[in-house]
């Protein structure tokens, strides 16, 4: 009997080791493959990871801080150093940061804002003002469906250990999957790899009903682009390429640093980007990927947005919600979409107690201030919009300044 028991243990030790070691080696091969491909979760959200890397340093500063948080529309349309300069001229000393980032929907932004909150709270620092963008077309069902493949990978990157543990307790199947993705797969899920390799098999991006750009238009665009790149290298010889630049507070260059001539080339370049074909193509893509005209909202994303505001309230003296200007020449919402949008706005206002400042239809921003159907140009639209934010919030910041003076 003893020998049969010891024999049984021997056999099952072998089986057990083969199961565990086999899986360990297989997982190592997966890791090796993603490493060899240069694929890592950070590739997808480099700007987010970059901003979080600098946040401990930012929160150790003794200055008054303003953060503008949102999508790539914020990334393109808000200029922190422009904002600070304008505020300084009004006698207000603040440092602002651009925390706009493309490729995230409110579900992921919720986790991103939690990490920002954690770092501010860990360093006993509060934001003087948090300005959060509510982006309606980022909150739609289509936007959500488009991100389904990357949800678990993004959560692996953005959720804290406690949040992952909580998730695992609530839903062990999903928890085990995300732990696996986070700890063994460098935040690259199987779906993400499948999607990556299967891109060539996706249906071709639909083409708009417009004449494609002429060769002259393409050549001009290329020429202007090359010219601007050369000029940039001359103007900023020490520039370190980062997804999120600490020196530029998450924003980019500002007009005051560039020559008149360069700014003129930029205007020509922007114009070369706004060809009917490119604009129609961009619009069509926004329809397909984000339902930008009809705005059929995804409940879960609206809820996530409300959570974002609540997260910011925990470490900010003042929280405001804004909607960025809309390129009204290209984006014309149906009346049903506007009604849906209004209902969501009211819901957010009720849940957060904050009145949303809606710049969507401001007449100070014209279609010529956009680089495409949604993003403002850096040296024109972005500057005008940044100045609008200065005008909107200067009094608030001044008043709060006075309150803090002993």
């Amino acid at each position: 009997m003893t020998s049969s028991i010891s024999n049984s243990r021997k056999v099952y030790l072998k089986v057990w080791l083969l199961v565990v070691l086999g899986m360990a080696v297989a997982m190592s091969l997966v890791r090796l493959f993603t490493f060899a491909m240069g694929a890592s979760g950070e590739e997808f959200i480099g700007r987010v990871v970059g901003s979080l890397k600098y946040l401990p340093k930012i929160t150790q500063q003794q200055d008054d801080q303003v953060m503008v948080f949102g999508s790539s529309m914020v990334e393109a349309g808000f200029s922190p150093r422009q904002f600070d300069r304008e505020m300084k001229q009004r006698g207000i000393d603040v440092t602002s940061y651009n925390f706009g980032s493309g490729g995230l929907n409110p579900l992921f932004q919720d986790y991103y804002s939690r990490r920002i909150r954690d770092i501010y709270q860990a360093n006993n620092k509060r934001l003087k003002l948090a300005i959060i963008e509510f982006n309606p077309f980022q909150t739609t069902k289509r936007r959500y469906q488009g991100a389904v493949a990357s949800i678990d990978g993004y959560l692996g990157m953005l959720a804290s250990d406690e949040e992952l543990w909580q998730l695992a307790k609530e839903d062990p199947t999903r928890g085990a999957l995300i732990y696996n993705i986070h700890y063994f797969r460098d935040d690259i899920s199987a779906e993400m790899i499948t999607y990556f390799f299967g891109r060539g098999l996706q249906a071709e991006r639909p083409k708009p009903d417009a004449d494609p750009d002429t060769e002259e238009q393409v050549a001009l665009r290329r020429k202007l682009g090359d010219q601007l790149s050369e000029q940039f290298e001359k103007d900023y010889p020490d520039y370190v390429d980062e997804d999120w630049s600490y020196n530029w507070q998450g924003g980019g260059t500002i007009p005051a640093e560039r020559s008149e001539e360069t700014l003129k080339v930029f205007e020509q370049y922007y114009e070369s980007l706004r060809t009917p074909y490119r604009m129609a193509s961009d619009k069509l893509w926004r329809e397909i990927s984000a339902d930008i005209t009809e705005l059929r909202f995804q409940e879960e994303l609206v809820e996530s947005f409300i959570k974002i505001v609540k997260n910011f309230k925990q470490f900010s003296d003042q929280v405001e919600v804004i909607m960025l200007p809309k390129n009204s020449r290209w984006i014309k919402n149906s009346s049903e979409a506007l009604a849906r949008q209004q209902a969501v706005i009211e819901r957010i206002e009720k849940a957060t107690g904050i009145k949303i400042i809606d710049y969507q239809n401001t007449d100070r921003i014209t279609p010529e201030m956009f680089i495409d159907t949604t993003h403002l140009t850096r040296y024109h639209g972005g500057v005008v919009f940044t100045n609008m934010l200065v005008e909107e919030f200067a009094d608030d910041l001044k008043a709060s300044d006075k309150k803090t003076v002993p």
Partner: protein
Amino acid sequence: MCSVSVLPGVIMIFNTPIFFAFFVVFLLGYGFIFLKHKPKVYFTLVASLVFYGSWNYHFIPLLVGSAVADYFIAQAIGNAASQRHKKWLVTLSLCINLGILGLFKYADFALSSVGSFLTLFGYEASLPTLAWILPVGISFYTFQSLSYTIDVYRGDMQPRKGLLEFTAALAFFPQLVAGPILRARHILPQMHDIQLPSFAQVKTGFLLITVGLMKKTTADLLAGPAATAFDGQQTISVLETWSGVLAFAGQIYGDFSGYTDMAIGIALLLGFNFPLNFRVPYFAVSPVDFWRRWHISLSTWLRDYLYISLGGNRNNRRMRNVMITMLLGGLWHGAAWTFIAWGAFHGVIITATHYLSNLAVFKPFAASNNKFHIVLKWAITFYLVLLGWVLFRATSLENAWQVICDMHSFGGALPAASSLAITIFALVSAALILMHLLDYFVLNHSKKLESKGWLFWPLLVLGQALCLLIGEPSNDFIYFQF
């Protein structure tokens, strides 16, 4: 679903990390702690119930109840003095098992069908529905349990002592939710005398798990093209429709046979031998041959317990018996007219095959081993099987008819195939062939590979790594719903 689970949120699917964790822990108990027979069987039963309850613990009593009822009925049949008494008892077992199945799986379908039927005659009948959740694997374990009482009734086996062993065998987690459908005479002796796995069994087990994983991963990748053809969201070319139908043929094969390969592989690691459930089915050269290769545990169950009970080939009633068997086989897969139509279609083509094979003009062709004839027979069979899959996958009979029309709309109004559509068609066909080559290899050459350890183990790990690297692990197994 979460609120009624033993482990809320857990769904034990073989290709998920949570099942891996479950199995690693289970192996520790099974191989190191519970070494004596009785504790091992107890432990296996408890683990199997945790596995089943992870989906929905409300249905554990149904599973255990089914086992207990059939165990005692079989004992009673064994002790019954008269044939009449035995008949009563086996009828009771049939009523219990088929009653459970009917209540959970077919009641709503029957009620809605009666309602629709009455509407046809102008009666506005709004019959109430039960809207009950269908217990996972119910079709598998009721058939398995039923085979025991029928075998005892027929005298093919003696009733066995040991309720614990019987329940553990019925609930044994590798086969619980999607088969293969085991016969009591096959699994009970193994549960009574649990053997240590030999190293050859362990190697075959790992090979089958890896091949199953590869087939399941391929099946998941085929789900997209299949959906394009059947969802009717967009107008697609004839080639894309064919790609979709082929993709579904690959998806259902990879999904189901992949699952059973993994089930057989896991059982081998635990010292159990399960029978083969698939034998390269799309290599079949006649509809009859297809059913000898596809879901063998179901087709043989239907043959042994239904077709033969109806009289089989005797009394010139073969056609009727085939039709009844195939109709019920279709219905076994689900409560929908599409499944019934699928069963009926297979009934018709099997009957037609029998009929034509007996005609003097076709007899030489049916019996011919000429390579050209074999290829022709294969092509006809595969085409018919594909038509069957259209009925099986379609959301309704109208949808099925539309897809069949689209498949044959050459020169019609459908758009021309793009180069992307041609690429997808080629990839889908390649995936289908690859899965069959894998199966063919396992059936015919695996021993050769297993004898070369230096090649066998690295290949296995590489295969597993490939499956972990790509895929969509969140997809459920299609056959869970049956």
